[in-house]
């Protein structure tokens, strides 16, 4: 047991040096190559978390993904925090981003409350189940399934198409009964666009899986929400993206309560992560105005691919099989 703890200390030390190398290589090149017994001041990890989540916030905006989907695999893969706390923090990161964006998206009539409400009812109920299952399963199983999910997200990002204004003959009976419809102004076309949705039942069923995964892994679910709302249900892309972001404020709320009630919230992780992601997002939006970073999307896909493999590798450690 004592050997295990010493081994873990050494691993943490090397990870720390790796992160320091990324942040400031001179600190590492100047260091002794042996592994001294050192203790770090308490503020080191929150500070590194702040810097890394700041960079993550920039990359997330430029890569067109939510912060949550980057946060959980990267922080759980390369930081010393247990996956339980990483998932709790990841949910709060995604939740805060959605809460911050929600009022503006609603007032601009881009996020549709009528589209979000039935979908949110399914997704948030299943997010509760997902969070409960996620906190009850052994950690290595969660690492393995998280890794598989992240690799699945990579496939979705590589293959998913988008449709600005999907073709639709008529709304289905359920969406008609619920009056899920709207009008928004599209400046690029200089006209008002009336939209409606179809395939509402299959759409709602999809959110059983999406909600469950959001709660289980603490991921935001924009990567899945947008294709379902846009390609399956036929909402315009702009409405789908905005409604998806708003939807996270409801889905992640339900799962966040489960993690909070289980005590899986450590303020020293949550607050630096929130500040980092938010500041990074502000800077990312400014960069986005002047740059068209197509390669960033490929970089995000590459990072997620590596983080997915890392999560699988961590899960396999339980079976004494590891490859990263």
């Amino acid at each position, binding site marked *: 047991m004592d050997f295990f703890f010493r081994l873990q200390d050494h691993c943490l030390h090397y990870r720390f040096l790796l992160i320091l190398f990324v942040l400031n290589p001179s600190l590492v090149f100047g260091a002794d190559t042996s592994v001294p017994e050192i203790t*770090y001041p*308490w*503020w080191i*990890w929150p500070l590194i978390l702040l810097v890394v989540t700041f960079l993550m916030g920039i990359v997330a905006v430029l890569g067109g993904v939510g912060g949550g989907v980057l946060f959980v695999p990267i922080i759980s893969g390369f930081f*010393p*925090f*247990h996956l*339980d*706390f990483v998932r709790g923090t990841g949910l*709060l990161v995604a*939740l*805060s981003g959605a*809460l*911050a964006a*929600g*009022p*503006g998206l*609603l*007032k*601009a*009539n*881009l996020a549709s*409350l*009528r589209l979000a*409400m*039935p979908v*949110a*009812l399914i997704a*948030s109920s299943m997010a*509760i189940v997902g969070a*409960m299952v996620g906190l*009850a399963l*052994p950690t290595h199983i969660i690492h393995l399934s998280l890794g598989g999910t992240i690799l699945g997200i990579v496939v979705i990002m590589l293959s998913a198409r988008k449709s600005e204004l999907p073709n639709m003959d008529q709304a289905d009976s359920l969406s008609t*009964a*619920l*009056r899920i419809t709207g*009008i*928004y*102004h599209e400046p690029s076309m200089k006209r008002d666009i009336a939209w409606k949705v179809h395939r509402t039942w299959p759409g709602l069923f999809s959110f059983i899986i999406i909600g469950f995964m959001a709660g289980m892994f603490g991921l935001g679910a924009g990567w899945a929400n947008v294709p379902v709302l846009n390609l399956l249900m036929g909402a315009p892309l702009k409405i789908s993206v905005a409604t998806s972001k708003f939807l996270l*404020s*409801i889905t992640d*709320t*339900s*799962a*966040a*309560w*489960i993690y*909070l*009630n*289980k*005590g899986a*919230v*450590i*303020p*020293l*992780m*949550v*607050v630096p992560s*929130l*500040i980092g992601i938010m500041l990074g997002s502000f800077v990312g939006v400014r960069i986005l105005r002047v740059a068209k970073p197509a390669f960033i999307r490929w970089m995000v896909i590459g990072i997620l691919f590596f983080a997915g493999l890392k999560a699988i590798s961590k899960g396999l450690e339980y079976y004494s099989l590891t490859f990263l």
Partner: protein
Amino acid sequence: MKNNQQNVSEEMILYAGVLERGMYTGLLLMFVTFLLYIFGVLEPVVPLERIDSFWNQPVHDYLVQVNREFLGWDEPPIGWSWVKLLGYGDFLNFLPVVLLSGVTILCYLFIVPGMFQRKDYWMASIALAEALILILAASGLLAVGH
């Protein structure tokens, strides 16, 4: 239509207003309570210099150890028991997290009466069901362990 805002429904404006106020209050409170915590204005339950020996454990083990070393309660602090620890810097930070997690429940409760008045029964029922589900999640009745 010159801009999108002309077509925003009454409940969307109400929802957005409550969400906006709750979100800003929660974020502001989060910064304040965090500063009180890290600058030692309020003593934490788990000393700052010891926290890194706790956060690499599963949440259940973490709570058991925190309870054993610092609290000495009959049960580890789960559910709403953090309320009893609000005088400590670390647990005070649960307050803004709860506000941010709870604002959506308020938003739903605010829009339900108007929807019933406008005879939008289906959507009103969905909103009411959503509020009840979120309240159930918030209640702590669904907490399970490893």
